[in-house]
């Protein structure tokens, strides 16, 4: 009994850490621009696919990882520069359509460049499962969780302790005021997309050995990441991570104890219940209408 529960939790944390990484990517861009980037899932795909392609071309894995990350960041910045920046004053819904358009566009490019096959990468530390009080875990899951945790810490440090991070937060809070204070808000947008793409690429690389990657992986991951970010409260990094982990564990527990057919539905029911009780997510700040 205890073993299965632990196994469900570990399964949930594995998926949850993946969702958390994607959710964190949503959060960074949201914080810098109040844009929900529905192309976030594509960053993961581009990161994973490029790594696969580069290693297949004979590059050593570490070099492939670095190059793939750079490629993804360039794509992210191009997206910011050519699709988001020119539409800065557009309505929220228009921006949603732009990022959805971007995700379709990028999916098309990925399909054209890398093909439609499903790919995998070798796990970083082999495939011998770790035994934990009767439950098992793949070493790669630890990589995902560890790298997620590490990235969260780096992000927290970046936003709280560096000038660039603070400038980003200031821009999100009040773009005009930030500009008047000498913050280059265009730069902020570009860096936010670059950062978010970086997270996506790293995420894509560490999760590929577990979930595989194909040109279509981004849809599901984007959806789950968005769910995680909203569940936790938009704009809150810790919230996105908590949201992702909760989502993963709820899914695994539902599959284990209630019904595997309805596990995704149950996860969404939980999200709805949370939102009705807390309209700004678990960790979101309550907004007040200023009149």
């Amino acid at each position: 009994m205890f073993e299965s529960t632990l196994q469900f939790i570990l399964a949930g944390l594995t998926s949850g850490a993946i969702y958390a990484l994607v959710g964190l990517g949503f959060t960074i861009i949201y914080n810098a621009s109040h844009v929900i980037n529905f192309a976030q899932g594509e960053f993961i795909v581009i990161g994973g696919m490029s790594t696969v392609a580069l290693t297949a071309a004979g590059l050593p894995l570490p070099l492939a990882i670095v190059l793939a990350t750079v490629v993804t960041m360039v794509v992210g910045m191009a997206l910011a520069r050519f699709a988001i920046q020119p539409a800065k004053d557009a309505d929220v819904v228009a921006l949603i359509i732009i990022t959805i358009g971007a995700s379709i566009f990028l999916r098309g490019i990925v399909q054209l460049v890398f093909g439609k096959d499903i790919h995998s990468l070798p796990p970083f530390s082999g495939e011998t499962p770790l035994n934990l009080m009767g439950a098992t875990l793949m070493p790669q899951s630890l990589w995902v969780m560890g790298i997620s945790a590490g990235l969260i810490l780096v992000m927290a440090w970046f936003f709280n302790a560096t000038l660039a991070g603070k400038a980003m937060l200031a821009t999100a809070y009040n773009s005009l005021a930030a500009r008047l204070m000498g913050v280059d808000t265009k730069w902020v947008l570009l860096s936010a997309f670059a950062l978010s793409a970086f997270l996506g690429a790293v995420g894509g690389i560490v999760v590929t050995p577990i979930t595989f990657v194909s040109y279509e992986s981004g849809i599901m991951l984007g959806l789950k990441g968005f769910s995680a970010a909203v569940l936790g409260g938009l704009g809150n990094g810790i919230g996105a991570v908590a949201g992702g982990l909760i989502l993963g564990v709820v899914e695994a527990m539902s599959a284990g104890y209630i019904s595997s057919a309805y596990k995704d539905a149950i996860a969404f029911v939980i999200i709805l219940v949370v939102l009705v009780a807390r309209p700004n997510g678990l960790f979101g700040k309550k907004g007040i209408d200023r009149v």
Partner: protein
Amino acid sequence: MKAFAQRHRGLLILAACIALLPLGVQNDYHYDVLINAGLNAIVVVGLNLLIGYAGQISLGHAAFFGLGAYASAILTTTYGWHSLAAMGAGMAGVGVLAYVVARPILRLKGHYLAMATLGIGVIISIVLNTEAQVTGGPDGMSAEPFSVFGFAFQSEKSWYWLVGGCLLASVWLATNLINSPIGRALRALHGAEVGARVVGIDTTHYKVLIFVISAVFASFAGSLFAHHTPTVTPSILGFIKSVEFVVMAVFGGMASVLGSVVGAFIMTLLPNVLASIEDFEPIILGAIMMGTMIFMPKGLVPTIAKKLRRKEAP
């Protein structure tokens, strides 16, 4: 009559287009595409009342479309209902469901509302996918032919005129609604919610009302779709389909009834036109979506109408 023409210019233009389009139609496939475009347009006209006029997003409207379709399919085949009765039951059922979910979730704003509506859509789609003994599961099911007063709609041509008529009726109803006190209340709560509340508008009531109305529009179109399409499957009520509806509304023009129709037609025709270069289809589709929203954030019809008005002015 002149006042009617003034108020319903868009409606008259649309009627003219519907009447003239068959001149360019060469075969049933063309009718099929136009019928689907018309059905999408009915959904989008309703959805635009919610998104464009009342300013509330829904990423789950395909679920209402799908529920209408399944209601018609299940009630006419499994239970042998008359197609009109099934359609009415679907609309009523969807209306009640929309009312029940709308009250709690419409307190949410922006992306949170988007998430909640998306969630409801996904939940409904999972239920229909899983309860295979009722719905046929992923393989779906078919509805009986659509018949009104003994006339069964079989040919694509008869379907074209049916859907064209329904679309015109939908546009007429939507235009009337927008130009009524209810429509003003909706636009007001979009423009300045606190301002609207303070002058006496029960904003929650109107948000719920329009959510229900737009869901009923979707259910209506879904019922027609079920009778026209060979099989109703869960793919018609997935998240992607919901997004397609929103894209049509925003692309054609928010807060523009005519825009909804134009958006639905273009976004339905486009994939068919691009089908012959399918490898590039997503790239072109994505580029068009981004480009339109970047250069015409208000959508196609309002932007073009504004340009033309400026040109006409001396």
